[in-house]
């Protein structure tokens, strides 16, 4: 009995001394409701997202106990860096929609709120009703509106620029991505393996694949994809015509995934790169931008980090007459 008492006293003493070691205090600046967002949606975001994704972080008493405070502080700092609702009012509608869409999809994937966080903070969990509320709100913000004159003009200018400059771009040095990946200029001649209608951000995409990737499809060897398989997900703005149909508008960006299980072992076996705009500006401040790519593709880890479910091109070759 005496032995257990000594152990208990020692543990309590260690626990007490540990409370003197604390991480830097997390700032807590109250955040007003997000503008142009209904009260019920604001309430859901506040209770489930704001603690880690805004300047307003309401820590519970148990969050402040060492060693839990180190864990919670890490969550909050990483959370604010990944997505911060504090700057909501300074964002364009399109940027706001991107944030909402990203947040909602992370919730649907079960990645957010972090299970380790919601296990303790039960009120951060979203009910099916909360999720449906966010879905309906996002849909209400992304209606297809007929493109106005300015948008049509922008689309025409983009088209003419690209058609006229096409020859000049051949051999032109495009700035490397921050992780050292060089732009691949001939992807427009590759095969399409699928397309998507991203009505949430008003873009439409064709996913191109090089010959190695197409051969992998034909040989049904796509999980994992072979080394040197490359995808180019290309996005254009949606141009909504008067009859309601939607056609490709101005070029937005191209995103590459380049498979090399050895060279890119540290980034899940893929080289990630994105160039935006007609002047092909590389995306990302430094090589760490790939963390963003991997985080987004993490839910499809079992599909070798590839979202696209490709067209079955194999049977088509045999069928050629």
């Amino acid at each position, binding site marked *: 009995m005496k032995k257990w008492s000594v152990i208990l006293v020692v543990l309590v003493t260690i626990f007490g001394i540990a409370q003197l070691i604390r991480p830097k205090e997390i700032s807590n600046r109250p955040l007003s409701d997000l503008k142009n967002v209904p009260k019920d949606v604001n309430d859901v975001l506040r209770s489930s997202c704001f603690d880690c994704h805004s300047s307003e972080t309401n820590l519970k008493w148990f969050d402040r106990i060492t060693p839990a405070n180190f864990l919670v502080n890490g969550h909050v700092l990483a959370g604010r860096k990944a997505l911060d609702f504090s700057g909501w009012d300074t964002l364009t509608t399109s940027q706001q929609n991107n944030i909402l869409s990203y947040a909602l999809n992370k919730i649907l994937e079960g990645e957010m709120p972090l299970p380790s966080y919601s296990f303790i903070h039960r009120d951060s969990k979203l009910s099916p009703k909360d999720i449906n509320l966010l879905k309906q709100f996002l849909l209400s913000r992304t209606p297809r509106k007929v493109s106005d004159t300015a948008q049509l003009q922008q689309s025409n200018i983009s088209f003419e620029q690209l058609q006229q400059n096409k020859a000049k771009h051949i051999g032109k040095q495009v700035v490397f991505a921050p992780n050292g990946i060089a732009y691949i200029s001939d992807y427009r001649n590759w095969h399409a393996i699928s397309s998507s209608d991203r009505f949430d951000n008003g873009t439409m995409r064709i996913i191109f694949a090089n010959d190695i990737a197409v051969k992998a499809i034909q040989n049904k*060897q796509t999980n994992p994809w072979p080394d040197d398989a490359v995808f180019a997900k290309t996005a254009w703005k949606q141009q909504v015509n008067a009859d309601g149909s939607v056609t490709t508008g101005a070029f937005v960006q191209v995103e590459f995934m380049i498979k090399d299980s050895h060279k890119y072992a540290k980034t899940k076996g893929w080289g990630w790169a994105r160039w935006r705009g*007609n002047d092909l500006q590389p995306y990302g401040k430094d090589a760490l931008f790939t963390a963003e790519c991997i985080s987004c593709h993490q839910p499809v880890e079992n599909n070798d980090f590839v979202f696209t479910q490709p067209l079955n091109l194999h049977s088509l070759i045999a*069928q050629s007459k």
Partner: protein
Amino acid sequence: MKNKLFYIGLSFLIFVTSSCLSDHKIRLNDEVSVQASDDLPENPLLLHPITSSIQPKDSAMSTLYANDVAFDYASEHSDAHYPIGSELYEVTWKQQPDEQWFGANIPKKILQVERVSIGSDNASVYTLYSGRPLKSVNTDNHSDRIVHIVSQRMAMVP
């Protein structure tokens, strides 16, 4: 007893192996692809994509494919005067919500394939393939569809 242990071990191994395999399935979208039984003269999905479009009213999306002749022409021109030997295929799919991304739609199944060939007399020949498997069907008034197909300009990239 040894045999029993062997079979238990073997069953466990098969279970573990099959679990691993099922986590890494080969995912090819057969439903959205042309089948060997379809009555098409060639494989349009292996041609060059010119552009894509969406018809929200019909919950449908299309991709316009072209052979080399037509693709080269569309790369340099935005008029509808495709040269002799051009083959264009407009493949239209029913859309479905993307289960992996709320806010996106992807192809679900092929609704129809329309083919426009520019013959030696410079005339456009239109053929519509529909049904499952895809079979050519007679159409009376299709001049508007030819205009629609040949007048789509290319989705350009830098």
